[in-house]
């Protein structure tokens, strides 16, 4: 019998990634969206894109801490899903919300900090999505990694875009800032865990911890008679 070709992690990831789109379509056709459906679509696609980005950034720390390398293989799909939802988000904004009224749109996008950072983040995502395939990885060689490190710059911009879309004030620590702050905090932690000396320290710490676990012990098990 042929082995089932997908791992549980892969299945969970694909289901989760598509779930929001399926839910949105379901909610749309069953009248579960609010009286302002365009705003619902904007918010939900945006938030799902950020969540996928957070999951993408979680892959490396998981490998660092638990020596579990499978998540590293899922980064490309997570990145492409992030791009997919970001694209839907931008299309809804430009087409459904602003009806492709370019002069009005451009005025908005260049004037509002919220939209400036959102737009920069989206534009930066495009080359990453295009070059995510093996052929580009080979072609770009060392530069591929450098290019894809742009995500470390892009992720905080996305959080800023989210924060500035809510009615609140991070400086006075008031208003609707809780969720964007949590996203910011998580992304901040994941990025800090990538700084080489910290990453090294975490890796050696976790190696020692893992060695203490009986099940994960690298020495062969001594069978007792």
């Amino acid at each position, binding site marked *: 019998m042929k082995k089932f070709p997908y791992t549980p992690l892969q299945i969970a990831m694909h289901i989760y990634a598509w779930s929001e789109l399926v839910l949105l379509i379901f909610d749309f056709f069953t009248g*579960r969206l609010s*009286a*302002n459906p365009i*705003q619902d679509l904007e918010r939900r696609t945006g938030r799902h894109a950020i969540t996928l980005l957070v999951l993408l950034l979680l892959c490396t720390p998981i490998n660092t801490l638990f020596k579990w390398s499978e998540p590293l293989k899922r980064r490309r799909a997570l990145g492409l899903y992030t791009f997919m939802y970001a694209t839907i988000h931008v299309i809804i904004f430009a087409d459904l919300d602003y009806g492709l*009224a370019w002069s*009005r749109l451009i005025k908005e996008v260049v004037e*509002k900090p919220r939209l400036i950072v959102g737009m920069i983040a989206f534009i930066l995502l495009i080359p990453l999505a295009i070059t995510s395939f093996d052929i580009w990885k080979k072609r770009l060689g060392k530069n591929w990694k450098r290019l894809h490190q742009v995500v470390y710059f892009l992720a905080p911009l996305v959080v800023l875009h989210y924060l500035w879309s809510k009615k609140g*004030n991070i400086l006075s620590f008031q208003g609707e*800032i809780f969720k964007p702050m949590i996203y910011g905090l998580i992304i901040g932690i994941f990025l800090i865990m990538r700084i080489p000396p910290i990453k090294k320290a975490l890796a050696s710490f976790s190696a020692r911890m893992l060695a203490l676990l009986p099940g994960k012990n690298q020495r062969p098990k001594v069978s007792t008679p």
Partner: protein
Amino acid sequence: MTNLYKSVPVRSSEITPKQVYLSRRDFMKAATVTASAALLAACAPSVTEAPKNAAPVPKSTATDELGNPVNTYEDITNYNNYYEFTTDKQGVAGLAKDFKTSPWTVEVGGLVSKPKTFGIEDLLKNFKQEERIYRLRCVEAWSMVIPWEGFALAGLLKMVEPTSDAKYVRFETVYRPEEMRGQKDPLYPWPYQEGLRLDEAMNDLAFLATGMYGEPNVAQNGAPIRLVVPWKYGFKSIKSIVKIELVSEQPATLWSAIAPNEYGFYSNVNPEVDHPRWSQASERRIGELSRKPTLMFNGYGDQVASLYDGMNLAVNY
């Protein structure tokens, strides 16, 4: 105490030309449904409306004085900004279901000769209730047209006789964190408070709404009594009022306390003065798909522009 209050006559501009826009509303609805269906799934032949709850829903084919049809009762009662309950606009109705609006009193005091605490039933009885169809423009750039019922704020203020020191009116929402779980959120300086300059408050448009669509207010719309100031952004129209105070200094307001650079005291609807985060030039009328330009003073310039003569509205935002 004798009641010398006379009700403000309804202006002829507010009398609804019912027949004119009867068909327009149906057209808009059909257009919205068709357009949105086409956008999301070109393959679906038709959109079936989800069965709504069985309670009879008041219907109106009325329009405002500009010919805009009123929003449905369903939309008005299920899409609410009421952070005392939740920041989720669709979630307010459910959480506000058990909110107690009786007994209810409104304390009117401060710099007045005749301070008085009114029971809600006194307010309903002593002030002639009339309908006002007002546009509501949220600072988040969506808007609705709502057929309110209630009475002019000026009538209540005249009854308590503001003294000559009174320059502003301060309003306060009830504070009941046990019933309003959003008030447990420490990120907001509860209770909600708002304010108007006295001459703004005395303007005939400033309205205390006790009902909507011919029904008493429901909790999510600010029951039992809320302010409606249609030429200002929606957050000025404070809900579930328990206190009205005449004061000499400009009172603090919740949103300007949180972010003074974004939410000013005046907060007049003004398409030329942008909010730093989002443009105020256009808005989406709930129930319609495309954006429409926002009107200066939300279209009430004739009645209120003179209040701001000589003021720089970009500074006094």
